[in-house]
């Protein structure tokens, strides 16, 4: 039965709502439950799996660091580890450089500015799986439209084996990642740029600073905290990337483009060796943890300057 208007709430509830401390706990509870359910529980379960001998449908027992040792002894794991660092490093540099460049361009006043800004976001808005499928067709070994265009322009005489060559396939994956990631950098940095007062630029210009000096001495220092946050998010996402590689190459050819996440998936979910998959996946954790700690420390230092 609904309480009638004017009816006083039960005394206990009233007390809880009145008390700031208990109200805080009450308001935090949904978040804590969600974090516990979807972050803490999977993490603990993943950690347990990594130190057990569980395979699909068979409960395992504790085996210590055996799965990690096995992973380290596995040349494909080492390739995946190398690829993950290379993939993250190279794409982050390109995304940052292109992102800043695009943000500076978009920060200018020109006709159709809003429309262009909306278009720039397209690669980021389209679901990764869909856009990667489109790229897969563009890199297709037989029907690649890129090869066709280059051939028509007399720039190549034979097909480029985008996804069949171990180095080119890794480069292809990186190209798609950069294409997809640049809008995130550009729009976030654009937001950062817009917080910088034009008066600072005007003052610098009056003092005789040229365009490069204005960027390097005024824009860049003020943009740095935003840039660090953007890089932090991007590095975490790129390091743990899965969809793009899974769709584009499946980790191939002959495991040449596996990242931690795709290799963990192949071993854990594909072949059903859950513990070994969990160990490969967990190998990402210390690196990501270090990245987060370092960047948060740096941001804090910049803010308290």
């Amino acid at each position: 039965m609904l309480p009638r208007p004017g009816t006083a709430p039960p005394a206990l509830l009233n007390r809880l709502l009145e008390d700031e401390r208990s109200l805080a706990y009450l308001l935090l509870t949904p978040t804590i439950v969600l974090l516990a359910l979807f972050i803490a529980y999977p993490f603990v379960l993943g950690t347990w799996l990594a130190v057990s001998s569980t395979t699909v449908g068979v409960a395992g027992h504790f085996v210590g660091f055996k799965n990690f040792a096995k992973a380290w002894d596995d040349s494909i794991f080492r390739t995946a580890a190398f690829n993950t660092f290379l993939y993250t490093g190279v794409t982050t540099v390109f995304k940052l450089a292109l992102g800043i460049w695009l943000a500076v361009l978009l920060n200018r006043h020109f006709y159709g500015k809003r429309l262009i800004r909306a278009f720039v976001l397209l690669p980021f808005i389209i679901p990764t799986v869909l856009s990667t499928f489109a790229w897969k067709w563009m890199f297709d070994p037989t029907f690649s439209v890129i090869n066709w265009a280059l051939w028509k322009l007399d720039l190549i005489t034979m097909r480029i084996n985008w996804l069949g060559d171990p180095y080119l396939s890794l480069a292809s994956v990186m190209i798609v990642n950069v294409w997809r990631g640049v809008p995130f950098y550009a729009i976030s940095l654009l937001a950062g740029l817009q917080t910088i007062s034009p008066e600072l630029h005007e003052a610098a210009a009056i003092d005789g600073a040229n365009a490069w000096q204005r960027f390097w001495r005024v824009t860049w220092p003020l943009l740095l905290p935003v840039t660090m946050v953007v890089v932090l998010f991007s590095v975490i996402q790129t390091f743990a990337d899965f969809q793009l590689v899974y769709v584009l190459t499946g980790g191939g050819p002959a495991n040449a483009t596996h990242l931690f996440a795709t290799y963990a998936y192949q071993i854990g979910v594909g072949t059903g060796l859950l513990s070994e998959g969990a160990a490969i996946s967990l190998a990402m954790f210390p690196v990501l943890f270090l990245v987060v700690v370092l960047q948060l420390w740096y941001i804090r230092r910049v803010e308290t300057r």
Partner: protein
Amino acid sequence: MDANRLNRRQFIKVSGATAAVAATGVEGMLAARRAPAYGQGTAVGILRWNDFVPASDELLKKTIVPEAEKAMGAKITLETVNANDIQPRITAAIQSKTGPDIIMTINNWSHLYEESVADVSDVAEELGKKQGGIYEQSRAVAQSGKKWLAVPWSVVGLQIAYRKSWFEEIGLSKFPETWEQYREAGKKLKAKGRPIGQTLGHTFGDAPVFSYPYLWSWGGKEVEKDGKKVVLNSKETIESVKFMVGFWKDAHDEGGLAWDDTNNNRAFLAGTICASLNGASIYIESLRKPDQYKTEKGAQMKTDILHASLPKGPAGQFAFHAPFSHMVMGYSKNQKAAKDLLRYLGSKEVFEKWFISQKGFAVGSTRDWEKHPVWKEDPVMLPFKDAARLGRAPGYAGPAGKKAAEVLTKYIITDMYAKAVQGMAAEDAVKWAHGELLKIYG
């Protein structure tokens, strides 16, 4: 029908049907054309691949499944997914103990899930007895000891589809019989921009069904008969890898390293490759759309396609045809209904409809289907007729069990060749694969 609310009349009707099915099996169910034991509350889910012959999926969805629902009185849900996505679905289903009651497996995958599937020996044995016996390869991939882990369904025969006129143009009136001859032919054709198309990628069908028999034909094998001693690193295997490197460069479309099971179909039908190991789906597609697929001379492509077995190597000629089976999942609460559905689908009367729709792409897992009149319809399809009889299961010379399934699903044999054609020394590629096998069998 809610079991708790049965009135006397309904009870007699249901129990009568149950007795009829129990007494006469599927034939009784088919003949009686009335609901057997299952009430409306019973639902059976089945997960299969997206068939390379779409007409067969259409037939299942629009005719066979509705008929099965009527015959069994149960709700049946058929879901189809890309074959490469089936294994992740199985893992997720087993771990969460929820999902389809029946899941299709390919090759010897079912051994990986031995502890998580229901014993279907009764259904498999019954099927074998009634239909002339189950092929050895289908048995090896679905039986562990005496327990059947899955009910064999079909075998997709693998043959090389090739362009008759292009081989004739280089002076060959019949398909090359040895790897050496095939390489020579491929070299000439590649020089004309018509290479051989073969995947060495991570894909469930075309990759292992090529790399395994290729290895066997050179005398290479994973393990000894005891299923324990790894013997991959042998002179024979190294020779096979060395030959493959030259063969690939001389005669193959080098994009094949990134192909899945569909790329060669598209490339062949687009006229960019001269030959490819495949199920009959290339030819069947050319029959389906005769005016869409044409040769460079304007003739219908279907008139220029023939099929041949993989060539011979120093140790003989071998094949690994792709066996398909259905597992009844251990977590299923409807195991009896699921088994009855497999009995129904595997019965001669029902399976025949599906078999005909395949036009020879898949043969049955039992010998009786070799005798079907469908094989008299088209001589181009004849090489597929007894393919299943001649196939060898992965894991040779050991059993096709769990360890062999792990080797297969990790694509180790395929990767051995792929690594070598990408530039790794043949000895190193074999050493790497041998090491991986030791980790599994050791």
